[in-house]
């Protein structure tokens, strides 16, 4: 276990802890709004931010936060404008972001290897100040995502209802986008920009296999995200693997394990659901007895059995008794 007590490992584990808590907290709202891939888009845009930092010699984390937030706000604006070409505009933004990042990195004279540490994460090289930035940003994200969960839940569940409830829907939607952008940059050093979306979405998908409620899903996803992040760093230390990829694969492994449980739970729920009451339109009344006879024919004008009018129906004399068709059975009269 001595490997885990090295300073760089402690920093890596702390970074993983904060990322693992924050990413699924925001991811839950993205999944609820069926915008699971939004984190991926913001990650692409943040590549340009990182490259701007490399080009100008400032901290890539700061420029990435700024560019990611601007990108998220623009994406939200495109989404709410409701144009039919909205998804195409988003695609343009994604690929513009990643191509711009690669181009600017080249202009800055940096190698692809430098960009790689941001694209795929390099958690073992993060500095103490990086850990502090990660911790503060993650704390802000978690406090807002959990503290405002009733409001964010209401807005993500039903926008029109939230408007009539007097909530500032635009503001809360924007908040989710900005939180997602901040989370992407928090997770940039841990799992990398290309895999950050996985840490936002996969724990949520895993959690909801076994949960019935929103809060349970939210906290379950945060727990699973933390477990996958810490576990991924620890595993990668011992088998000398890429930590970012290990974290994501571990999160996916949790999903693969939870999916059959979810299938079983849903199946059990379906079986437990009561059948819709199927009422016999001709219930057997007290004064009648059902006759356990099968008839080779339906009684009618042409069957040859003597017909006797009886109130609102006709009885047929059959084997020495009178009876009448009543729904699915015969009544003895």
């Amino acid at each position, binding site marked *: 276990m001595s490997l885990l007590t090295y300073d760089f490992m402690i920093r890596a584990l702390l970074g993983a802890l904060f990322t693992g808590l924050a990413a699924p907290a925001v991811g839950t709202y993205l999944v609820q709004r069926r915008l*699971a891939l939004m984190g991926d888009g913001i990650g692409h845009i943040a590549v340009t931010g990182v490259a701007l930092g490399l080009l100008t010699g400032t901290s890539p984390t700061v420029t990435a936060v700024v560019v990611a937030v601007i990108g998220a706000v623009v994406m939200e604006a495109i989404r709410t404008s409701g144009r039919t070409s909205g998804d195409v505009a988003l695609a343009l933004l994604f690929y513009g972001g990643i191509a711009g990042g690669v181009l600017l990195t080249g202009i800055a004279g940096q190698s692809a290897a430098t960009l790689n540490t941001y694209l795929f994460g390099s958690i073992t090289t993060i500095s103490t100040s990086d850990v502090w930035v990660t911790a503060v940003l993650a704390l802000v994200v978690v406090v807002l995502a959990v*503290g*405002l969960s009733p409001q964010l*839940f209401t807005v993500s569940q039903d926008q029109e209802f939230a408007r*009539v*409830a*007097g909530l500032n829907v635009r503001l809360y939607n924007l908040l989710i986008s900005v939180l997602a952008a901040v989370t992407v940059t928090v997770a940039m050093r841990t799992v990398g920009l290309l895999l950050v979306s996985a840490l936002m979405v996969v724990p949520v998908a895993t959690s909801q296999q076994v949960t019935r409620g929103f809060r349970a899903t939210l906290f379950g996803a945060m727990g699973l995200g933390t477990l996958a992040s810490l576990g991924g760093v620890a595993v990668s230390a011992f088998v000398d693997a890429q930590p970012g990829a290990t974290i994501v694969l571990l999160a996916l492994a949790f999903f693969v394990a939870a999916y059959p449980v979810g299938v079983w739970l849903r199946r059990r729920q379906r079986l437990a659901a009561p059948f819709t009451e199927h009422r016999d339109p001709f219930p057997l009344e007290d004064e009648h007895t059902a006759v356990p006879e099968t008839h080779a024919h339906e009684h009618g004008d042409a069957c040859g059995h003597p017909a006797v009018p009886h109130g609102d129906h006709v009885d047929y004399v059959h084997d020495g008794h009178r009876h009448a068709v009543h729904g699915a059975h015969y009544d003895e009269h």
Partner: protein
Amino acid sequence: MNDPVVTVADGAVELGGRPVLRGIDLAVRRGEVLAVLGANGSGKSTLVRTMLGLVPTCRGEVRLFGTPLEDFHDWRRVGFVPQRVGAASGVPATVREVVASGRMSRRRPFLPAGRGDRDAVEAAIDAVGLREKARDGVATLSGGQQQRVLIARALAGAPDLLVLDEPTAGVDVHSQQAFADALGTLVARGATIVLVAHELGPLGPLVDRAVVMRDGRVAYDGPPIDAFTDADPPHGHDHHHVERDQHTGDPLPVASPLDRAREERP
């Protein structure tokens, strides 16, 4: 205090340049149960959404509780049941969680739900008869039960004005009756109700005024006629005469159930 709860004065709405509502003058009085009826595309849904500011007007004015809509902030007085196929979203949510979001107009950010909030949520769940389902995921409920969840959500806010957009569409008769009973208690408390409906069904006895929309205009505004209460009514009475325009002698336009009755008796 005698202000109408909702006023629309000379209201007009365009969606994508196409006129959807024209010349709407309507005042909903306190304690009134108003049914907005009409065929698909007649603008009945747009009318109630305009009342709530979900659809902007291109002319005219909308007031809620006497306050112009743009200055209205007292949203805790308004409850809304939107037209929905279901109550589910991308993440599971329990019945209680969805109903609890009905308290949002009364809660402050970052503060936990108080006792009053929790009591109101439980009472709303009881009112729609979903007590045993409170901990279940809404996605696992039937369509009618999901609709009842949305109604409970609106009831949880204890609104003075409740606006419902086709609340009973796709809801089985049993649930409709439970829902009508829940509305009845709200009416008894003095609430004002505006509901959009294709047909009134079990809600019929509650309604004391009907507005029939046709082509974006109010075609009828008055007491509900028996023909509205069911799309295909068993007629135990005769229609004496057809209302005609005083000048042209043309039959006045009314909603589809009446038209059908008219075709049967020219």
